[in-house]
Structures are given as C-alpha cells and as structure tokens.
C-alpha cells in the first residue's frame, strides 16, 4: 500500500478520492467543532469563556507535532532510500506545520494574557514550541537553499532529523520542568477513557482535532500534488532549453 502510494503518478490518481473524503470531513467537522466550541459548550469555572480558545489551541499543538513527526519520517525515507516523493513531502508539509505552530503560539499567547497575566514567558513548553516554529522555518528555507533541488531537499531532510530531538522535549516539558504551562489533560490514549477534563469540553476538543486532521490531509494532498506538478514543469522546461 505504502509503496504503491510512493509512485508519484499513482499518488496523483489515488489521492483524488481521498481528497474528497478529507474535504467533506474538514467541512463538516470544522462547522460542528466551531458550533460546539463557541455555542454548545459551557464556560470553565476557572478560565470562564477563555476556555474556548483551548479548542483551537490544543489541536493546533497536536497537529504541529504530527506534521513534524511525519516530516521527520519522510526525511528518513528520503535520506536512506532517496525516494523522490518523500523529499517532496518535506517541502509540501513544512509550511503547513509552520502554520499550525503559529496558530498554537498566537492563540496560546492570547489565552495567556487574561489567564496568566502575560502574553509570553520563557518557560520550557513555550520555548520548545517556539523552537519548533523556527525549525519549520529553517526547513522551508533549506528546501530552496541550493540551485540543485535534491541537494536542497537533502539539507532540509537532515535538519528535520536533527530537530526530532525537540519532539520529546515539547511533549514532556510540562512534566520535566515546573512550567507555567499546565500539564496535559490528555497525555496518553489510556487517559481518553478517563480524561482530566469534563466530557462537554472533551467533545469539542476532539471534534476540532478531527477537523484539523482532515484539513491537514486536504492540504497535504493538494500541496504534494503541487510539488509533483512543479517537478514535472521544471523537467519539461529543462528539456525544452536543451532541445
């Protein structure tokens, strides 16, 4: 299945029905999620209405990490097997990850001011997520750093792999250090059965996470197709200039 997808032409064909599913999923889940987050859920007894920011902040953080993990996996595949599609995936997904990280940082900051009394503190969680944002920007920059495309992608792939050390730091920063950022309410799958948050707040969070996930799939498919098209265009131009 994976190797079938790994062929660019086959990916273009197989991605079409998948794109429909992710489009419909993104549309329905985001409308449902927005309704639950803004209207259908109660204010928190401690955070009042600002708890509503959590429904777009926490899933953004999850997606930021998911994007990075998938990108680092693609980087490994690209470096070890020199697989073109894996390299293109890095270039396609880095801006998506950067966007989710930016949303996480900005919404967190807006939430922090009324709740903590400050827009920003240099605590371990916030700093490690900021580093994640800079890693994404670095990958985006490296993807176009050299004249030779494969050389650029290889450099970007190495940065992805090195940056993976930041992932466990983000995940466990709230446990390892005494941060201002509160510990996770949903730190593992076993906790989903008995979460540290109430059900009427868990539902909008998970629906919104589903909406983000579908949107991520939509963006990944469109942008990966764009990378394939760009490659095709460049090769065609190269042939033309030689002819």
């Amino acid at each position, binding site marked *: 299945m994976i190797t079938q997808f790994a062929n660019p032409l086959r990916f273009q064909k197989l991605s079409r029905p998948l794109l429909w599913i992710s489009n419909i999923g993104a549309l329905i889940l985001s409308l449902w999620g927005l309704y639950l987050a803004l*209207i259908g859920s109660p204010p928190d007894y401690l955070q009042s*209405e*600002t708890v509503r920011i959590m429904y777009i902040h926490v899933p953004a953080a999850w997606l930021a990490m998911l994007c990075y993990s998938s990108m680092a996996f693609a980087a490994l595949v690209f470096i070890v097997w020199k697989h073109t599609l894996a390299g293109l995936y890095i270039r396609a997904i880095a801006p998506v990850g950067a966007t989710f990280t930016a949303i996480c940082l900005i919404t967190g900051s807006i939430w922090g001011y009324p709740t903590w009394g400050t827009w920003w503190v240099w605590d371990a969680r916030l700093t490690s997520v900021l580093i994640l944002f800079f890693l994404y920007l670095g990958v985006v920059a490296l993807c176009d750093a050299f004249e030779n495309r494969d050389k650029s992608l290889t450099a970007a792939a190495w940065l992805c792999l090195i940056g993976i050390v930041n992932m466990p730091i983000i995940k466990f920063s709230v446990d390892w250090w005494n941060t201002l950022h509160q510990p996770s309410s949903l730190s593992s799958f076993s906790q989903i059965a008995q979460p540290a948050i109430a059900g009427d707040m868990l539902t909008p969070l998970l629906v919104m996470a589903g909406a983000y996930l579908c949107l991520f799939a939509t963006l990944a498919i469109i942008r990966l197709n764009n990378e394939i098209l760009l490659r095709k265009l460049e090769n065609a131009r190269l042939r033309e200039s030689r002819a």
Partner: protein
Amino acid sequence: MDFFDMNGYAQYIWPAYGTAITLLLGLVVSSLRQNRKLKREIKALEQPQKTA
C-alpha cells in the same frame, strides 16, 4: 448580543479564532491557487509541442 460579547472576553476569543481561521484558509487558498497556476503553465508548455 451576549454571544458576541463572550461575557467580556470578546477581545481575546475573537482575535484567537480569527487568527486560526485566517491562517488556515489562507494556506488552503494559496495552495489551490498554486495548483491552478502550475496546471496552466504545464498546459501552455505542452500546447506548442503538439501543434508543431
């Protein structure tokens, strides 16, 4: 009007939601635009070869 006021937290909640929606929609729109542009350029490049 209570909904838009968000019990006095409107100045935090709406910018947060606005930022998230703007950034994500912007990325979708720019990706779709790029897709259309690339397809158009490829078509333009293939056309003269066929007529020649």
